């Protein structure tokens, strides 16, 4: 059923008229052209599609778009502000924490959610919090290092 929904997308108010049962991931990727959020499995197994909704990590392949009504949505495209990379993005580059890069947006968004709720995670907590995100290229150890580096940088300065 077509309905009009309002939400905030990467800091900007949005309004869309669409069948609100449609899948959040595909609305983002096709209707809104935000292709940074990836499809990897469509069944909550890989984490490539993770975004933040009201600062909670959400696997967008599993949610209907009505779920974001009245909420704040952040995708990978909304992470850097005015060309300034987020500490996580910088740390991923610094640690070479990616190869093909296809899992990367989901990894970064999941880490963003993780650090929001636990700004100084231990390695064990990082592993636990990230364990449902898959990377076929095998960047895991570097991603752990990157998250630690970002956590350090964010502690004193920029808040998320």
């Amino acid at each position, binding site marked *: 059923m077509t309905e009009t929904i309002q939400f905030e997308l990467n800091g900007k108010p949005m309004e869309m008229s669409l069948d609100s049962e449609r899948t959040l991931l595909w609305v983002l990727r096709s209707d809104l052209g935000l292709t940074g959020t990836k499809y990897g499995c469509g069944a909550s197994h890989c984490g490539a599609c993770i975004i933040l909704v009201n600062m909670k990590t959400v696997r967008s392949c599993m949610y209907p778009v009505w779920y974001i009504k009245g909420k704040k949505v952040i995708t990978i495209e909304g992470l850097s502000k005015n060309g300034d990379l987020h500490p996580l993005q910088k740390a991923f580059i610094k640690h070479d924490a990616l190869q*093909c890069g296809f899992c990367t947006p989901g990894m970064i968004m999941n880490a963003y959610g993780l650090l929001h709720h636990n700004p100084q995670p231990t390695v064990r907590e990082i592993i636990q919090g990230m364990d449902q995100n898959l990377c076929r290229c095998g960047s895991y*150890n570097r991603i752990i290092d990157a998250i630690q580096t970002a956590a350090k940088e964010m502690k004193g300065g920029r808040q998320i």
Partner: protein
Amino acid sequence: MKKDKYLKIDSSDINTPFAMDRREFLKSLGGGIIIVFSIGELSVLGGGILTKVQESSDLNAYLRVKEDGRIDCYTGKIEMGQGVITSLAQVLADELEVSLDQVDMVMGDTELCPYDAGTWGSLTTRFFDPILRAAAAEARAVLIELAAEHLKISKKQLEASEGVIYDTKNRKNQVTYAQLTKGKKILKPLSEKPPVKTPSEFKIIGKPELKADALAKVTGEAKYAGDIRLPGMLYAKILRPPAHGARLISLDASALENIEGIEVVREKDFFAVLHKSPEIAGEAINKVKAEYEVPEPKANDETIFKHLLSVASESNLVEEGGNLKEGRELSDITVEEEYLDGYVAHAPIETHTATAKFEGDKITMWVSTQTPFGTRQAISETLNMPLQNVHIKQNFLGGGFGSKNYNQQAIEAARITKLSGKPVQLVWTRGEEFFYDMFRPAAVVKINSGITNSGKITLWDYGVYFAGARGSQLFYDIPHNRTMAYGSAEGAHPFGTGAWRAPANNTNTFARESQIDIMAWKAGVDPFEFRLNNMKDERMIRVLKAAAKKFGWPPVKLPGGKGYGIACGVDAGSYVAQIAEVEVDKETGQVQVKRVVCAQDMGQVVNPQGAILQIEGCITMGLGYALTEDVKFNWGEVKTRNFNTYEITRFSWTPKIDTVLIDAQDSPPQGGGEPPIICVGGVIANAIFDATRARLFQLPMTPERILAAIHKG
């Protein structure tokens, strides 16, 4: 699509150039200095890389020094995470004396780039680097010549650095590449002996560099084939059979009539729906009622090995030496074992994807492919249109590992766009990806080997079935040996099989290194010493020693569930040795790999940072085939369709990884994207044995199999 490629894809499959007149293309390029060559002349360069020469009129460009001084590098290779976008730029920048960020990589575009057979077999660095270096050296020579004219100084007195040419006696007297190329268009053919640098002159080659594409990837801006958005584009879903080999009997699409905006295309059994919302297309295709006739199953994931042995009709002698009978007589102890390896999926996180549009009689496509030129060829044949009317564009790949050598999705997307007349995007679902993947073939290895009481290997009778020969060649020094590869041309496997990262070598190395370990234990000799005692190959001895030193071998053994194993092997010209520490829970059969040390001799290392990433990636990925990855099926019906039943390595299983790169800057660069994965099965199997005294003869080494082996004792 051809099945049973098990014997064909090997590192020895080298490019056969495809001749095409590119003079028109060269005319259309802008100004500057363009280094061209005709394929006919190329044999001078690459140690016989390009064997079959078809036409000498074919001109290709490898690089262009543009009028603004920036450099375009054209390569038919693609970037799928292996980092060649960085390492090729390094090679070019070093030889041409420009900084790395002056280089723009133009990759895999079939109109702009020279023909390339595909990005696989760890060939890029080995075979493309020398060509690129030669082209860059040539361009530098042209620039120096121009500068000599411009500055009216002898060439000998000039030096290039960072895109500027100086008078060495008066550095203020200088001219930039941009000034030299402005308003010019120089086509320079490659000469026979381009003035390339010696290793001691390298400034950028051999230095660690961070990945050039990282920025685009962390911001979500990097464009993969499925990220292309075209006006009026529709998303396609195709009707799929329940099993390979199934035949469509009836089809009822009446349920689609009430779906708004749905379009249907059909050509015989090929049936697809299109919609502007991908998930609506997905729901629609599920509403189509289709009946199929499914062929009688001949085997499943448990019985497949027996089936394979029964259909192996072809044999190839890989190598032999001495006399097996004599070897048997010399042996005090013989060991006869059989090793099994199931089907493994590539499972890149990006599924096969293609986007296509027609403009007039020309088709343009963005494809997740390791073989853009092969894709172009396939599209031209399928749609029956001339090659030059098919244009495959550049995009990133979300992982390949061999899976994207096969481009069924591109052919499908091209057909749909032709039938519908609309721009189309086809993104395979994860279920389709598992169904149509060209799996690493299931395989059996039989080994009969013998040693003397003093631990000298005297006999090696080796037969590999259906994996392929890569990696089966002996580097141990065994006087009496024979290595055979068996297979059959058609019909052995229920579905397509193909090249999986280091094809055949994972299977062969697992079997060989397990067998070596068994013999070491029987001889009562430390497995590291046992290996050294039985080899003469200096490069292998060096990597083994380097790994042992880094690891601290022999390990101090404490009581508890820990175990230590060694394995080594050769792949794509590189030598690899690994040592692993594992912890095994004897109650549950769970294995935790704690630490892996990898030493590698890959000749000249262009980007050490990139090489280390590849090693880490290979070991991490390799844990999956070693421990969990196994495709379940009942003949053509593939049961494994997503990551819940196909477990790949996760954060929590990843061990600490230490790498040692042997410094061999003077020897030619070898493959790096595959070799480190070959030892992972064997090194873990040997460590599990050390921890439990249970020997695993089948991959993956699941907890159930480990428990069964422990109980067998």
